[in-house]
């Protein structure tokens, strides 16, 4: 079969995309690496050099706090989203094609929304004059409308809003590939729907769920705007500080060093999820 594919395209074909991606994707990373070891000129830019001062700042209390905040917020959002998304995806995969398409269109529309728009929408929804506060006051639950943002609650709501559609789309391929006959067989042999879920569906999807958890974690590590819009300064994550150091503190070497760290963590995590995925293939 691949015989007919073999050489069906000319050999020079990949040169343009390869040259393009080398120049505009790998070269920027290489420059970023050199900037991360460059010498910072306070108040100005940086001058070429080879020193690890920026990396040494990782061992400060300031940075440790940022890292811990990032990890806790992302891990929390990832766990909540995958737990919410798992039953959602199971239900979605059992719908007819038309229904699935409609739900997928909605999910993609939400997923493609700018973080700016999501931050703005949620801050409006949680504001004093236009949102939940108004509704609760009108229903008599609280005396007077109040704002629920900025707060950790607002930030987590935003993170979940952003990551839930992503979690569903990550879980969707393995869940939709699950053989429905296995569940039916269990049901015919007298298992209750809950027993089937617990003893057949969940064990078969354990590895895809772990993989999804990691990917959603990496995805939420990249959130750079919601902490500024919905959270308080102590909720600023690594991504926010990278932008802040690069643009407002004019400390490009430190920003680059943090980006390199984020890159390594992300690559390691994605690699881990790929390993989990490969085990799954050898199982079946």
């Amino acid at each position: 079969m691949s015989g007919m594919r073999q050489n069906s395209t000319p050999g020079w074909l990949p040169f343009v995309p390869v040259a393009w991606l080398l120049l505009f994707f790998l070269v920027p990373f290489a420059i970023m690496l050199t900037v991360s070891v460059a010498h910072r000129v306070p108040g100005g830019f940086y001058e070429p050099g080879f020193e690890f001062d920026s990396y040494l700042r990782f061992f400060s209390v300031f940075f440790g706090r940022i890292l811990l905040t990032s990890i806790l917020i992302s891990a929390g959002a990832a766990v909540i989203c995958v737990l919410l998304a798992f039953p959602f995806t199971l239900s979605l995969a059992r719908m007819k094609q038309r229904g699935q398409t409609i739900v997928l269109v909605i999910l993609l529309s939400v997923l493609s929304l700018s973080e700016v728009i999501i931050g703005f929408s949620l801050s409006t929804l949680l504001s004093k004059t236009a949102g939940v506060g108004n509704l609760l006051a009108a229903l008599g639950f609280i005396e007077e409308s109040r704002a629920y943002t900025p707060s950790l609650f607002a930030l987590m709501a935003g993170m979940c809003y952003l990551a839930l559609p992503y979690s569903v789309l990550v879980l969707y391929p393995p869940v939709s590939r699950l053989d429905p006959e296995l569940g039916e067989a269990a049901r015919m042999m007298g298992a209750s729907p809950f027993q089937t879920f617990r003893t057949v569906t969940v064990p078969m999807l354990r590895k895809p769920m772990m993989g999804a958890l990691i990917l959603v974690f990496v995805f939420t590590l990249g959130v750079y705007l919601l902490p500024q819009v919905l959270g308080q300064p102590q909720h600023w994550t690594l991504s926010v500080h990278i932008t802040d150091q690069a643009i407002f503190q004019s400390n490009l070497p430190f920003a680059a060093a943090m980006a390199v760290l984020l890159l390594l963590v992300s690559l390691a995590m994605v690699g881990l999820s790929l390993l989990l995925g490969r085990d799954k293939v050898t199982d079946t």
Partner: protein
Amino acid sequence: MTRHLQIFYVTVILLLLAAPIVVVAGVSLNGQQSLRFPPQDLSLKWYAELFRNSDWLVPLRNSLIIAAVSSLLAVAIALPLALHVWSRNNRLARALYVLGVAPFMLPPVISALGFLVFWVSIGMYGQMTATIISHGVFLVTLPVVTISLGLAGVDTSLVEAARTMGARRGQVLRTVILPLLTPYMISGYAFAFVLSLNEYIIAYMVAGFTVETLPIKIFNSLRYGYTPIMGVVSVIFVGLAALAFGLIGRYGNLPRLLGAERVGND
């Protein structure tokens, strides 16, 4: 879970996802310059204002130009890459595929900083061309994935038939494979277009102070003065995304495009 419970759960989640958008749509209908919900003095004047007020018209134009051109670039780079990976399928080709998928898999803040130092180094920081090329590279993953899916579905007996009837390699590509790939190229373009419109961090880091796009404009307004126009832009963006993905869903197979293998047709 029983059938009804499942449908109930899916509906509740979708309603929660819709809630902020409903509120923002309501806010965009305020007659005064305030963000109240339910809106007061219903009016569509902020919709007209978006196309009249140059504060917003310039970012709108910037965003549309950047999205249109960068998505075209992304497809132009993705097509030869995907074709090569499909026809060779060796280790080098698979490495090339990873290179094509990588830009979108990493946290965007990393690529944004990479682009920033790159454009500063070659002296193009702050130019729209820099934003366009950066978006073109960042979004190349989407057409790479859709076109590769399209190629995986190409029936090789068609290629074989064309070859036996004497078609040369270029002719087969042009007359058999490319027409089959067109819908996948279009959906890749649509994905990239919608995401470029919504992209903030790269556009901001590469040229945020000179080439304002709509997301940058909204963020600046979040700091320096709310206006219902922010709601208008949000509604238009949601509408555009729903339209683009709706069309892909209507004329293509969205579940398969997103990785489902068994989808009943009934």
